[in-house]
């Protein structure tokens, strides 16, 4: 299978490299030569435009910041696509935007999957991402071997947009979860109890979670390096809250969490990992004591 990959950033680069490692022919395009170099070195073929990448590929992946960029890539893919090409976008965008782009592409003979991921840069490098897919079953079956080169848990959730709905649910859980873990550890510390021991004890019970395990550990180490940048989580919470508004759906817990991410970005911690939530709570209550 010939693969195209657009968006060779923090997440996209290791994902594309894993596709090469699995033996797929990989076609790439990027604005900056620096983004292309590691892929070239791994045997990927660089092209002069996205349309040229599409013309050489059976499946094109993209991993870009937001909906306008996805729309742009989708347009260029359709310009170069051979009949039967599948376009799998792995960015996180609004479900409504994913549905709209998919239907526009369908009219031009390109099948689209929305396939956002969870697992961060670590998961992208290790090839252990969780991939949530929306779109036609047949296209999913076609792309599955390539998904398997990038991720471990791959689920077709439903029709177009369903992958983005699942990702929004994922962001509700992680957005609220990271705030809850930061509050709990800050509470323990302010109560003069060792937060590391609290974490240790809780991991065995019903409050045990991946977030308590991973994010909790990084909070204890005061390691705020991304990971997953707070401003990106803020963007994703914005998508969630817009959907809730559109649907007339109350998400009270997510709403507060979204405000905490606003505060993180507003106080200059947008480039930190989301675990910087801990610093925010410390500051709110008079510092890290």
């Amino acid at each position: 299978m010939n693969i195209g990959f657009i968006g060779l950033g923090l997440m996209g680069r290791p994902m594309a490299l894993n596709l090469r490692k699995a033996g797929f022919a990989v076609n790439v395009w990027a604005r900056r030569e620096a983004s292309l170099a590691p892929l070239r070195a791994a045997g990927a073929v660089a092209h002069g435009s996205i349309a040229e990448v599409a013309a050489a590929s059976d499946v094109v992946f993209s991993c870009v910041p937001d909906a306008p960029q996805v729309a742009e890539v989708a347009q260029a893919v359709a310009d170069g696509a051979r009949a039967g090409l599948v376009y799998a976008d792995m960015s996180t965008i609004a479900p409504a935007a994913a549905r709209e782009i998919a239907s526009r592409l369908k009219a031009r003979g390109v099948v689209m999957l929305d396939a956002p991921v969870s697992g961060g840069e670590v998961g992208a490098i290790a090839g252990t991402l969780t991939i949530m897919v929306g779109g036609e079953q047949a296209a999913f079956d076609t792309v599955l071997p390539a998904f398997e080169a990038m991720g471990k848990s791959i689920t077709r959730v439903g029709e177009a947009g369903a992958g983005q709905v699942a990702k929004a649910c994922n962001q509700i859980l992680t957005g609220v979860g990271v705030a809850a873990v930061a509050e709990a550890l800050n509470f323990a510390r302010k109560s003069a109890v060792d937060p590391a021991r609290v974490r240790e004890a809780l991991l065995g019970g019903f409050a045990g979670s991946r977030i308590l395990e991973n994010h909790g550990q990084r909070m204890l180490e005061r390691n705020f390096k991304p990971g997953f940048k707070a401003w990106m989580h803020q963007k994703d919470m914005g998508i969630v809250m817009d959907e809730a508004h559109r649907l007339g759906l109350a998400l009270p817990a997510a709403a507060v969490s979204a405000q905490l991410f606003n505060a993180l970005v507003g106080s200059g911690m947008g480039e930190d990992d989301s675990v910087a939530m801990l610093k925010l709570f410390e500051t709110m209550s008079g510092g890290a004591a």
Partner: protein
Amino acid sequence: MKIGFIGLGDMGQSMARHLMQAGHDLAVWARREASAEALRGEGATWCASPAELAARSEVVISMVTASADVEALVLRDDGLLAGFAAGAVHVDMSTIAPGTARQLAARYAERGVGWLDAPVSGGPAGAREATLAIMVGGDAAILEKVRPVLEVLGRRIVHIGAAGAGQVAKACNQMIMVAAIEASAEAMSLAAANGVDVAKVRAALLGGSAGSRVLEVMGERMVSRDFDKGVDARLHHKDFAILMAEAHALGAPLPVAAVVWQQLNALMARGGARQDTAALLTVLEAMRTA
């Protein structure tokens, strides 16, 4: 003064009528011609398009629902921008996003047309009684030029700052007001849960530090369970999307507003879009019996 008016809804009708009664030469345009019938009967001139209205007016006032409505009104092929002569002024009194107001002000400036964003607070009653609070963004000199016109419509006219600043003030107004409605509803809900007479609680509180216009007006609607008059909750719901988008864009945390927004979302889901926002009380009641 030759004034054009667009947006003959609940509030716009009263406002347009005040302008005519103050002796201004009023023309109107409306999407549905029927909505202008009453005013035409009272002497207002009908124009076939926003452009035609703009061409004959020194000042055009608009009072419509959403950012997209104002944008279309200005930028469509036969829109206001196409009709205005240099020196004319568009005063938009709708509640829209500050960003939209700034963009439209810039488009007009290229053509030498003035812009004010002048959203109001006071509701249909304030429009009827010409007691609206008007918060203005835009050039101070332009405001001075149209101040006599605004004085016909409202009592308190405050220049907040440059274009968009009026809408920022309005967003702050909506945030405080709807949060106060939610707080009033929660107080009513707590009183009722205790089996205490909510009317007496309201009456007592009005005399003290928690007394407010919201507790007075919306509180009364909660006590009498009359949610059919007042301001459609869907309009506040729309306003919250604007102000929460601003908070997101600026990285400003609004934790209380965020929860109030969710209660509004729930009210929409329960079919309360056209009820008064005092119906936020019913969301709390539903949460208690769930």
